[in-house]
């Protein structure tokens, strides 16, 4: 299953969940009605002997729907606040991007590499400093507000490659849309739970008032008995509903864990990394336990079982360690290595050195597999090697990402890692080559930006020259983590400055457009209420114009002559079943038009997005070579469609 299918599947599953939910609510209404009318029937023998009371049913239905919907929406709204709310509730503390502690540096580097390799913004990392167990979690609603949390035990006990396995597992949760699924499940369960809680309160209040006032007249006694019966009934319905709901949730969660384990092996091409981490958990006396009192609510988000309570395996959010290990390593002998004595075993890898822990042979085979697979694809005349990697970075990508970061000038990387300097990096990237425009830009910064930022931008200009063109977009990814730490007012100043710098030369370059798209997509949701695009179209038939604009823009970007553009366009069109599509004139598919087209195309299903991206890849690779311009345009397109695209590897046939 690739990225597109799993995104669609996650959405479909949500649809199925909603259906189940409606079913559950209906059966709950019926049960509540049976409980209430039954209680009435037995206590008031004469007056209301009928079984069917439309008025009562209406009241029960309204009350139940209101309670369940209120409970669900409330919980979902609470969890939608983004990953950092969850991380902070669990006692996590943000690791500063420019941390110098070697262990913290190591985890930040691993996360950075994995993020760049998969083409997502670098998520903030939270450290649960008081937790000694080995565990980690990913939380958030979309990849844009995702955070990763790790325990102190994890960064102390795991080697670099084991950490890579754990982080790859968490990235799989982010890329597969598991977090959104989980949040909806929790919300629904909460709604059902509320019914049980009401029953419990009714029961308690009746029990207290009953004993306080003593026995009244027989009529009142009957009323009390009815309420008592209703309380018991509601509690039973609610708690039974929650019980079965939890069983289903746990079963879903266990399946997602196996999937994430498998993806982690796929991302790192190294089963020993994640298996090693699991074995460390088995060997450690602390296991994977989390002490925070809020852990129960978030137990399904963790890397391994967070609670050590003796629940049966049916309720477990994670499969047993042994089962997971046997799936990854069928030949595992069932023994755990001796626990590692906590010692700072390996210092953070020195710059310019290959990260320790990755077996060279593994990397070579990983690259060979990659080359083999894409080579075959090219031989069969099939485009889409780059597309099939969306959401599925490989070792080659991770290695490439690490290489990219190492190749960046040190002052730039240092600045990109903290919020103060990250803005300067973005400003510096937007500086125009022409001296007078650049002067105007610097003047604007001096007037509108923070104290000292102009100086920092100027000092970054020289090292920025050394940044390779293909490293520009990964560098933007690198800054997003730090930029998310801005406050709303700081962000609005930053945003205004970026827009002003772009407008300084009166024309929008491709890089500026992609940069703006990335910032809008990855940062804006952090600071403002942004509506997420809903799926509105299940076919491209009525979206011919936007499709034509996209393919024409991609075709023109790599070809100056009309004939070349035309043949590239033909290549792309053949991927979409839209024979009437016409190549547009260069002026009709500028960046402004493309922007509009992409906003529309963002509302199609993921399956169609995949077709669009394949068509796009076919366009840019029609002449068997991909220029940086084409690559950036493609990356910007993928980003606008919400598909994290791994960087194109040098020499990669696509």
């Amino acid at each position: 299953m690739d990225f597109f299918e799993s995104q669609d599947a996650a959405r479909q599953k949500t649809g199925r969940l909603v259906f189940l939910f409606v079913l559950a609510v209906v059966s709950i209404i019926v049960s509540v009605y049976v409980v209430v009318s039954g209680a009435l029937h037995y206590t008031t023998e004469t007056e209301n002997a009928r079984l069917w009371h439309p008025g009562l049913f209406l009241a029960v239905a309204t009350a139940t729907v209101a309670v369940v919907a209120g409970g669900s929406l409330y919980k979902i709204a609470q969890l939608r606040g983004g990953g950092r709310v969850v991380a902070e509730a669990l006692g996590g503390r943000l690791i500063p991007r420019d941390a110098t502690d070697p262990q913290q540096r190591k985890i930040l580097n691993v996360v950075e590499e994995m993020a760049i390799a998969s083409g997502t913004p670098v998520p903030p990392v939270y450290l649960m400093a008081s937790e000694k167990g080995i565990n980690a979690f990913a939380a958030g609603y979309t990849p844009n507000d995702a955070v990763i949390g790790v325990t102190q035990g994890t960064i102390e006990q795991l080697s670099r490659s084991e950490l890579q396995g754990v982080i790859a597992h968490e990235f799989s949760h982010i890329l597969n849309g598991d977090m959104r699924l989980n949040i909806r499940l929790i919300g629904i369960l909460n709604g059902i739970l509320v019914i049980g809680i009401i029953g419990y309160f009714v029961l308690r209040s009746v029990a207290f008032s009953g004993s306080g006032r003593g026995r009244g007249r027989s009529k009142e006694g009957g009323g009390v008995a009815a309420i008592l019966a209703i309380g018991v009934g509601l509690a039973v319905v609610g708690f039974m509903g929650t019980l079965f709901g939890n069983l289903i949730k746990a079963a879903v969660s266990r399946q997602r864990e196996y999937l994430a384990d498998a993806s982690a092996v796929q991302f790192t091409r190294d089963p020993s990394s994640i298996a090693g981490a699991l074995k460390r958990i088995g060997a450690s006396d602390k296991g994977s336990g989390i002490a925070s009192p809020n852990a129960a609510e978030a137990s399904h988000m963790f890397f391994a079982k967070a609670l050590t309570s003796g629940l049966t395996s049916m309720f477990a959010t994670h499969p047993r360690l042994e089962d997971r290990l046997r799936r990854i390593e069928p030949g595992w002998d069932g023994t755990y290595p001796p626990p590692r004595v906590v010692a700072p075993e390996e210092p953070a890898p020195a710059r310019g050195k290959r990260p320790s822990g990755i077996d060279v042979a593994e990397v070579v085979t990983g690259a060979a597999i990659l080359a083999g697979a894409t080579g075959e694809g090219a031989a069969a005349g099939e485009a889409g090697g780059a597309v099939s990697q969306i959401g599925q970075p490989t070792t080659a990508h991770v290695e490439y990402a690490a290489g990219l970061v190492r190749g960046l000038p040190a002052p730039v990387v240092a600045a990109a890692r903290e919020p103060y300097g990250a803005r300067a990096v973005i400003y510096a990237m937007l500086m125009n080559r022409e001296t007078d425009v650049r002067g105007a830009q610097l003047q604007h910064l001096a007037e509108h930006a923070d104290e000292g930022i102009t100086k920092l931008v100027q000092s970054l200009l020289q090292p920025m020259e050394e940044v390779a063109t293909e490293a520009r977009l990964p560098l933007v990814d690198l800054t997003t983590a730090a930029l998310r730490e801005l406050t709303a007012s700081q962000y609005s100043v930053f945003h205004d400055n970026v827009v002003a710098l772009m407008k300084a030369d009166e024309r929008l370059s491709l890089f500026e457009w992609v940069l703006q798209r990335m910032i809008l997509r990855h940062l804006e949701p952090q600071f403002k209420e942004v509506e997420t695009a809903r799926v509105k179209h299940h076919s491209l038939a009525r979206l011919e114009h936007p499709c034509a604009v996209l393919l024409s823009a991609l075709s023109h970007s790599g070809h100056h002559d009309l004939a070349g553009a035309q043949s590239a366009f033909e290549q792309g069109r053949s991927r979409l079943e839209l024979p009437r599509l016409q190549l547009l004139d260069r002026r009709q598919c500028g960046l402004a038009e493309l922007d509009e087209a992409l906003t529309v195309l963002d509302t199609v299903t993921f399956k169609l997005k995949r077709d669009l991206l394949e068509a796009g890849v076919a366009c840019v690779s029609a002449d068997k070579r991909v220029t940086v311009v084409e690559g950036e345009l493609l990356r910007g397109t993928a980003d606008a469609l919400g598909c994290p695209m791994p960087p194109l590897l040098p020499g990669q046939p696509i």
Partner: protein
Amino acid sequence: MTYMILIFLIVVGGIGLLGALFAVGIYNRLVTLKNRYTNAFAQIEVQLKRRYDLIPNLVETAKGYMAHERETLEAVIAARNQAMAGLKAAASAPGSAAAMNQLAGAEGMLTGALSRMSVVVEQYPDLKANQNMMQLSEELTSTENKVAFSRQAFNDAVTGYNTYKQTFPPVMLAGMFGHSQDASLLEFEDSAKMQEAPKISFS
């Protein structure tokens, strides 16, 4: 009869439950905002620590050139140690008025001592031209900018917390939930001067 009572009970129970959910929401929001400014303080802490780490190096470099100015140098080191203690106290209770005041006061003294030192350094052209000294003072200036920047972030977060706490309806419940004290902004005495120009200019 019981029928009416029942419907009444269901309605009252529903309203009560909604009220309870609302209160829980307020409580959680308060906790979230408080955590946010605590985390924002951690960012200041990182930068201030770096500043405190740089100062001994600066003094060490200066020592070789200005042996006769021991008093000035010792004042800088003393102020730096005091500020470090202030930071430690503040980190354990970010937002508390006393801790913020102590930190701001100590920082003010340190800034004063540093600016006195920079006046003295003016009299030693060799020292001013020292490569190491130039690098250190540049680093110090940039760190101070970062402090100002993260202080702004912290103050934004504190303002957000205070504003939420003082609005209606949270204002009725905040005290009950243990959020009776407003969090304090971190204002350095010479913040006006700090905005104006970097204090240390050896070059």
